[in-house]
């Protein structure tokens, strides 16, 4: 096992345990205005910037940053993946594994510990091929049984970490971290908070994997408290997993403006309009509704360009359907986009569409809004609970979706109003707000633990 530290002033001295203790930073505690105690948090996740493939890593980054700004100390554990350019992740130095890019330095106070595991929350298209032989995706389009071995290994490693660092609270993201969190709790006796960003019901669209469901249910049942990213998700936790509603707190995600946000002054052809779908091309994200709506829109507005950015198991079918509808010249697939490409794509778009079938939160519309792109989102998404200046549709209502796309591309007053109002709304959707709510949950479980 290796540990990684980035930009930490005390990182070079002493073994891990010692270093963690040295973080009890008295000055920071005094900085707190409200006099609340600061905490040491052991966090388990799947991914952390810059190595991310979905919204989870971005969310973890923003959340941890805000928590650290409020004086808390975080040890973040992630399983790492050996890419082709990294032959040996075991011997890997963490600093290399999570290199701090020029603009994305790890906030002071966050330690990232990679654990040796090929786990990844979502697979980029190329990865599917890569893993197919390794039987990770033996069942097509879904997880293979080996994944559970990996989860177990991750959990055991987490137990080791829990013995070596000191912390007040365990905060685990998603089902893959549940065994890790349970190990850590067994080692330490500290309370365990399960942060649910998505459930198997969202991901699978009906064909629920019983193994994953079991891990989720165990996590939800055994957690001292549960954080859900939306009321949408909370109700699913209560109704489908039989969890007491009092045990679940809703903390909506937020979005933080990337440093490069304003730098993309994309020049477009006059009058050309681009409608964007950006996300995994899987059942959950509803790409099929985007394709069908595009055909309807093109029947009345033939000059519009549709872009489907991302990759996923439904991509071949989408390509075929686009060809079948004869709109290949107006419908582009970009494949999986990374970092700057994503930002450029947002900046070039006139409208962002998220027709998700089931979306616990859905951070992408907020990111699009950062680029002053108006958004259409499905009502079946958690983010629609916090967004009021977006057009909303039921994902199955292709006519409504197509009509709203046409309206947004036709009448400037509509998008102007949405964009101007969204700017105000985004200012209130900060990670600082989310961190305050998470902090309340920490206090609650720690107080319960200590019998306060």
């Amino acid at each position: 096992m290796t540990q990684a530290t980035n930009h930490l002033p005390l990182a070079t001295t002493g073994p891990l345990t010692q270093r963690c203790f040295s973080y009890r930073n008295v000055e920071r505690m005094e900085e707190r205005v409200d006099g609340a105690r600061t905490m040491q948090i052991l966090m388990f996740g799947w991914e952390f910037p810059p190595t991310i493939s979905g919204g989870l890593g971005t969310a973890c980054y923003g959340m941890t940053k805000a928590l650290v700004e409020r004086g808390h100390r975080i040890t973040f554990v992630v399983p790492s993946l050996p890419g082709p350019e990294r032959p040996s992740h075991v011997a890997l130095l963490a600093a290399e594994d999570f290199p701090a890019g020029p603009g994305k330095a790890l906030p002071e106070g966050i330690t990232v510990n990679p654990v040796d595991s090929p786990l990844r929350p979502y697979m980029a298209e190329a990865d599917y091929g890569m893993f197919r032989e390794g039987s990770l995706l033996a069942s097509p389009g879904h997880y293979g049984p080996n994944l559970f071995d990996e989860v177990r290994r991750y959990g055991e490693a987490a137990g080791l970490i829990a013995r070596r660092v000191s912390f007040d609270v365990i905060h685990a993201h998603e089902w893959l971290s549940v065994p890790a969190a349970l190990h850590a709790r067994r080692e330490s006796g500290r309370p365990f908070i399960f942060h649910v960003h998505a459930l198997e019901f969202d991901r699978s669209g009906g064909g629920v994997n019983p193994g994953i469901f079991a891990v989720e249910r165990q996590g939800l049942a055994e957690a001292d408290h549960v954080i859900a990213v939306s009321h949408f998700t909370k109700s699913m936790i209560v109704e489908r997993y039989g969890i007491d509603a009092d045990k679940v707190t809703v903390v909506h995600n937020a979005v933080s403006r990337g440093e490069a946000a304003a730098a993309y002054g994309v020049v477009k052809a006059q009058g050309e309009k681009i409608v964007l779908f950006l996300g995994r091309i899987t059942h959950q994200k509803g790409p099929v509704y985007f394709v069908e709506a595009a055909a309807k829109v093109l029947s009345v507005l033939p000059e519009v360009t549709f872009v489907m950015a991302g990759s996923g198991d439904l991509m071949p079918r989408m390509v075929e359907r686009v060809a079948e509808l004869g709109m290949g010249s107006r419908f582009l697939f970009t494949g999986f986009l990374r970092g700057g490409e994503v930002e450029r794509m947002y900046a070039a778009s006139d409208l962002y569409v998220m027709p998700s079938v089931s979306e616990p939160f859905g951070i992408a519309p907020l990111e699009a809004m950062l680029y002053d792109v108006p958004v259409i989102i499905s009502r079946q998404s958690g983010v629609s609970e916090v967004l009021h200046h977006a057009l909303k549709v039921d994902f199955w209502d292709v006519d409504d979706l197509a009509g709203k796309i046409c309206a947004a591309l036709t009448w400037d007053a509509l998008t102007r109003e949405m964009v101007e109002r969204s700017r105000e709304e985004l200012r209130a959707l900060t990670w600082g707000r989310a961190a305050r709510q998470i902090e309340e949950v920490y206090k609650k479980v720690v107080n319960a633990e200590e019998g306060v």
Partner: protein
Amino acid sequence: MPSVVLHLHAHLPLRLKKYGFFDIGHSQDYFDGEESRQVLERVAKDCYLPANRTLLKLIRRHRGNFRISCSVSGMLLEQLEKGQNAVLESFRRLADTGCAEFVIGPSHHSLASLFSETEFREQVALHRRLVRSLFGQRTQAFRNTGLVYGNDVARIAESMGFRVILAGGAGRLHGCDAKALYRPAGCRKLKVLFRHDRFSDEFALRPAGAERQDLTADEFARRLAEGAHGDEIISLFMDYETFGDINRTATGMVGFPEAFPAVLLKRRNWRFLTPSAAAAQHAPAGEIDVPGQLFRAGSETVGLTWPGNHMQMDVARTLYGLEDRVRATKNRKRIGVWRNLQASDHFCHMSTENPAGGEIQEASNPFASPYDAYIHQMSILKDFSGRIAGKTGERP
């Protein structure tokens, strides 16, 4: 001798039908007659009928000492004529007592005063004719939609023969205490009567006092007596809904509107006046100069303020941009559709001021969001302008 001018306003728009981009050119069903009828039926039963019963009872009980004024929009009157004769009859009975003055306004509850003087005048004339034929009254009292006021509105009202105009927004005027009549700048005969916002809101909302007790009629009368001296006029302007809402009786509010006149009239020197009587008996306390358009405080919460947001401005531009072409069709049905599209409610529904907590408009708002409201209206206007173009032979 202090007076109270009690004014109740009734209006219901024709609801817009679900209409999207792909309906353009395919459907000219803009209004949802069935839904409008159901809403009207509900409001009639819960509000108009019980309120008018109460008012009639009060007028009879106080033998001419209790006087009110009402305004019923032309749009609502037309709907009542079609299906709610009982309500129409209850208004008629009020009119017959001679103690209820029916105030005139733009017939289609439009904001035409902001965009087209011609249309504004026509709508006022329409409403005046309608009220005269239904209630036999020829009144000289006027109110603009939403109590929107300005020098221009006053000038037009005077030129049309009105002698008093009901207005809102006194709180935004420096040196106007809203307890007297004023002379609008540039007018010679017209007087303006401003809504007393604090007392009107207290009457309508009856907020709980310090002891968490609902406002009683006695307490309200005491506050009025404390707040008015000499010849002052307290203008209580409100919607019918706040006067006759039976939901309030369920929360123990029984009889506040019913008890209040008796309590006030027991105080020797108080009386109730109609707007015209108030104007006839009081000299103006001063001149009021409002060059722009004055919206009353609180109107932004229902989205009625100007200049509006991008969507409200765009719809208004498009809608009134059609005026000449609509008139050129000389088609009464088309002109009627155009007027029905002007109802201020449609503009309120596009307000983005308070999208999360707009409970006030929830009940009457058929749209999921202001953006949906805008898309509906622009789609309708697009279709409508295409049809007019077809009619007048020009290209859309």
